[in-house]
């Protein structure tokens, strides 16, 4: 629901540039800690709606993870089901215009080579390397107007990037954002973990890096 709300606002953006629209960061507990638009023409949601969006996504993410098929651990040696490591869940929403054209998740999408979780050299040899390794959960949502890509770090923080659906190399952008976060949020003594991110240097570097890309 809230996701399509958001897309409605994004439709106002007629600019066809392959753009990054906005970024949301969700902490381990599902709380919204950062939200920022990168285009001035965007219709903003209320703060409360953003909080709900973050919480809802967090919940859906957990559910998609919990419905991931789990294969018996004991079978790793006898039954090398290599496909089982692909715990990626993908979900397609109908476009906000109401036309029910479910975007079929393409093979490239579900086997996203840029998915850092599936990209580990070690994980390919194991179906479930250690019991504590969580399934990845929802990684992207797509409408015909925008794409939401979720990157969950191994520590449980989620970066949600709203982009043009045709934007390429989202993983590069995501990786850079994570680095900037590691630098300007994590190394800031005035930032308290799990709390809202109010770091002027993070805003500044994020903004100038994204501007510089285009």
């Amino acid at each position, binding site marked *: 629901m809230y996701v399509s709300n958001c897309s409605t606002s994004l439709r106002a953006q007629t600019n066809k540039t392959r753009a990054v629209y906005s970024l949301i960061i969700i902490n381990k507990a599902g709380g919204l800690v950062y939200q920022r638009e990168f285009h001035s023409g965007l219709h903003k949601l209320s703060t409360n709606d953003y909080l709900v969006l973050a919480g809802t996504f967090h919940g859906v993410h957990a559910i998609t993870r919990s419905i991931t098929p789990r294969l018996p651990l004991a079978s790793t040696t006898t039954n090398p089901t290599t496909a089982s490591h692909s715990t990626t869940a993908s979900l397609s929403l109908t476009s906000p215009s109401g036309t029910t054209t479910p975007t079929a998740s393409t093979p490239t999408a579900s086997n996203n080579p840029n998915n850092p979780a599936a990209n*580990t050299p070690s994980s390919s040899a194991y179906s479930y390397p250690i019991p504590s390794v969580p399934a990845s959960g929802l990684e992207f949502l797509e409408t015909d107007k925008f794409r939401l890509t979720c990157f969950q770090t191994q520590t449980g*923080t989620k970066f949600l990037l709203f982009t043009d659906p045709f934007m390429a190399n989202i993983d590069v952008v995501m990786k850079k954002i994570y680095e900037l976060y*590691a630098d300007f949020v994590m190394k800031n003594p005035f930032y308290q973990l799990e709390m809202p991110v109010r770091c002027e240097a993070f805003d500044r570097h994020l903004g100038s890096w994204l501007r510089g890309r285009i």
Partner: protein
Amino acid sequence: MSSTTKTARIGEELWKTRVDKVNAELVTLTYGTIVAQLCHDYDGDYTEVNKQLDKMGYNIGLRLIEDFLARSNVGRCANFRETADMVAKVGFKMFLNISPTVTNWTSDNNQFSLIFEENPLADFVELPDDGRAQDELWFSNILCGVLRGALEMVQMQIDAHFVSDVLRGDDTTEMRVSLVRYIEDEMPPDEE
């Protein structure tokens, strides 16, 4: 090529290409001034200083792990032995430009030692000759906390402590690391 060698190469490569550098002496002296301040604040109670250093390290570890993950791009380790190599050959390499030796595994693969040939934090350091520091102070104890904090964030509860230190007159500097448990990811809410 062994997996340890492979991991070591990842560390080398990251150090060369992905790590911003500063003068080593600035880091060494800054750490020294932190320890000295604690000794001053806790009035030479070295047990308390060890505790505070561990706590500081823990706070650093909780944050440092994000830098480690963001820059190294490495995936999850399949087991604790892999974790040990990752810590020694990639983690320590990235942050301190050293690669301690991983050794003395217990048979259940849950405990190992890190042997430090080099320790940049302790460069230039001589402990106070007060008859106590060499018996009580673990000068580099912050490293134990860093490991504990960083691994906790990737779902491993560990215990880490020094068992010897050349600053104390020992022949080696050795840290013992034990896996306490893997922290289960929060279970999906079945029914409430």
